[in-house]
């Protein structure tokens, strides 16, 4: 299973970022090999509009099964969902804890976006 987690920093010990589109990093974690990769999303942090689309596009290119973040906007949700990834809301701790929750199937998956777009 491949996980994508919005993160405040580039390591597994970083805190999960509550925002999806404007998180500075994404951690892409492979539960089989236990290896991870970091996507730098900092360019997007101050994007005028479409941060969610841009971020989800780069996340989706890593073909994640599950995407974890505190919040998903409607456009990001649409792209992630369109790619077949499931989205889970969780931002109460470290990336490593989110990974544990995913592995033990303790995450709650969302059916829709939970925040409004910023520039609607």
């Amino acid at each position, binding site marked *: 299973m491949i996980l994508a987690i919005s993160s405040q920093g580039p390591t597994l010990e970083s805190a999960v970022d509550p925002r999806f589109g404007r998180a500075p990093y994404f951690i892409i974690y492979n539960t089989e090999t236990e290896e991870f990769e970091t996507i730098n999303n900092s360019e997007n942090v101050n994007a005028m*509009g*479409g941060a969610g689309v*841009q971020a989800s*596009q780069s996340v989706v290119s890593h073909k994640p099964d599950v995407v974890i973040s505190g919040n998903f906007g409607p*456009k990001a949700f649409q792209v992630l969902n369109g790619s077949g990834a499931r989205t889970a809301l969780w931002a109460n701790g470290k990336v490593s804890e989110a990974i544990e929750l995913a592995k033990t199937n303790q995450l709650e998956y969302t059916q829709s976006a939970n925040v409004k777009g910023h520039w609607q």
Partner: protein
Amino acid sequence: MIKISVASGKGGTGKTTIATNLAAALSKKGKDVVYLDCDVEEPNGRIFLKPLISNISRVSVLVPRIDLDKCTFCGECAETCEFNALAVLEDNVMVFDSLCHNCGGCYHICPENAIKEVPRDIGEIQSGSSNGLKFMEGQLTIGEAQAPPVTKQLKKDMPPAEITIIDAPPGTSCPVIEAVGDTDYLILVSEPTPFGLNDLKLAVGMARELKLPFGVVINRSDLGDDLTIDYCRKEDIEILLQIPFDHKIAKAYSEGRMASDISPIYRENLYELYENIAGRIKQ
């Protein structure tokens, strides 16, 4: 043919009151005037002018549609789109219409010729008249994000008139620049409070950047401090008019009535203000 725009650094300063009453005052003096409401996200000049609408037209913009049979999902279109309006997935391309700025970039870049442009309705323009005054307003459909195309269309369709009064949206962003650009004079409406002054400074910055001649109307001039006047003096900015607070005017406003029905300031003083501006424009 004189075009005067009325703007303010933020909403709620009395900009629409000045714009509608100025237009009505000039019309009452027998001038050929058109009032153009360019505050397309919240046009409210009509509340006061109560125009009879005789024509409604739609405004549309072109947005991309993808032919998925031709598309190879190469991703070039999304890459080129500066506004992140496109997302290319493995077997689908998503278009986010509300983010599209209609730049045309994606049509040109697509190597498979898989993108075509289709019109999408984003708002409308209404025109009519109010006691001899020509009235026109643009309205962006709720939920739409791109105001400038509506403003552009509005200014294109505007009927010729001796005097055009443009009610600009509040703020200093793109839609404001679209509205006040290519006008002859800009009236900035402000309030004499620290916040009001801050917004005024931004608006002055915009006017100077656009090289538009401008002056300031201070509304509720007795309900604040002297900082705005001091600022204008220091910056050599003309104060066109100071209007003290009048609860009768506030009441008329809340009832959707014209201030000029109640106070001569909104008839005689605004007319004088116009003559003063017009004299200078003609020089």
